[in-house]
């Protein structure tokens, strides 16, 4: 799984910084670049996704028990590929979640390009993004001390 991600701030256009008050999410781990962090446990959980070539911030999964959406932030790759989402009556679209670092079980790891995500738009209400997960490799399980899922990374396997 991956419960938080971080990105270098330079990928965000200024208006996104202001609209979503990203300043509150800036974290400095040292070095020249601070980073902007997004965690599922944030008061307002967001994910940076590329939609039609434009970087947008959308809600990370759903916490609402009303409506058709599953109350989680993740979905299995097998669920996506087997068409399990088709029955929900929502529009779905594969998206790229931008991420420079990912965090699972308090272990941060470098991500090359990003994570596969699923953008889900219910008939009423704003779209939200789910992070797509896969079965972890032994390597990832050892690294994270027992994660039972791994984010489905773009062109990369950890």
């Amino acid at each position, binding site marked *: 799984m991956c419960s938080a991600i971080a990105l270098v701030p330079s990928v965000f256009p200024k208006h996104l910084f202001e609209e979503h008050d990203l300043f509150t999410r800036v974290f400095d*781990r040292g*070095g020249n670049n601070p980073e902007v962090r997004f965690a599922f446990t944030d008061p307002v959980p967001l994910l940076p996704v590329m939609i039609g070539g434009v970087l947008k911030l959308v809600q990370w999964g759903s916490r609402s028990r009303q409506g058709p959406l599953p109350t989680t932030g993740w979905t299995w790759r097998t669920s996506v590929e087997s068409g399990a989402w088709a029955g929900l009556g929502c529009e779905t679209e594969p998206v790229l979640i931008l991420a420079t670092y990912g965090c699972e079980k308090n272990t941060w790891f*470098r991500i090359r390009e990003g994570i596969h995500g699923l953008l889900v738009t219910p008939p009423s209400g704003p779209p939200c993004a789910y992070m797509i997960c896969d079965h972890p490799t032994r390597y990832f399980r050892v*690294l994270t001390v027992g994660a039972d899922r791994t984010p489905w990374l773009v062109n990369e396997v*950890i």
Partner: protein
Amino acid sequence: MRFVAHLDADCYYVSADRVRYPDLIGKPVGVVGNQGACVIAKSYELKAQGVKTGEPVWDVLKKCPETIFVKRDFRWYEVLSRRMLAMVRERSEAAEFYSIDEFFFSTDADKQIARGIQNDILNNIGLPVTIGVARSRTLAKLFSDTAKPLGIRVVTDPDEEREHLAKLPVGEVSGIGHRRAAKLLLHGIRTCLDYANAERRLIRGLLTKTGEDLWWELRGQPVTPIRPDRPTHKFLSRGGSIGGASADPNVIRAWLVRNSERLVEELEHYDLKAGTLSLSLSDQYGGGDSINAPLPGHTNRYGPIIAALLRSFERCWQPGTVITHMHLVAGDLKRPGFVQRTLFDPPDDETEPLAVVKRDVNERHGRFAVRGGTTLFIPEMYRDRSHGYEICDVRGKFCF
């Protein structure tokens, strides 16, 4: 007078990852080894938190919860290593590929050459390295260790040498481990200077010839020369089963191309050119033929190699003969600088840029991303990207 320089990249794996991920600069970074459990390299930020190489990830997290872990990528480390070596060889006539991030080379006492190499590598590749210059390789390695990071230490004056040696525990000498150091301690030998001042016979008695060699080296008498043309291989070969039996000339040619590309990779890796080439084909009854594939001169270029092999193949293969195995063997291997050029050498300038582009694309997008079109006859060999780079393809210069 010529001296020995020892170049050592500073926290190499971390620095190599920072070349392609500059966001990692200045952050606590740990490169994780083969099993996903231990850090095999740490950044100076991690070191400052007391993290040691070889520590398990969960212990590292206790010391530095903000650590960013990177999965090791030996292919990438090897790529940068070869770029460093090329830069050293541009400025020194004799350079030895000692390990993936350490080279010895010959230089003079003034810092110019060392500074030039250090700057070349930093500015063109982005890797920080430290260089020690001394009268022997053992001394050079000791002094580079004390000058990290991004340092240059030239110690060629015997008095200055002794000053430094007096400060270094004898265990710092590569080749003297804990056990040997303990043995030496029983004789009151604690520092490198104690070692250099000890009786030759005592050292010989305690640590045999290896110990005596180090003793000479610590006294500024080089024993082991720089080995620029380390005789690693007499032959390089590639081949094996052709994935079943086939009498289809297109399939056999496709395997010729695949194996030639692997052979060229191998030649490029070891920076060698082949003077001879042979092709063996085996049939299903265990019979077979091995014939010479004459090359137009020493080469490590795909063009002339595949041309020679195809010519030989057409000569020795009877249509209808079922082939099961194929081997390509390159011999009379030489370093490019050591090849005597003749009047009749074909110009390789035309194929050179193509070879460079092919190598660069494959480095970036995976092995065989660009390959000979003939291999389309054996698509199954390329379907799975994980066939691209196996652990055995990392030619071992080091262990951990």
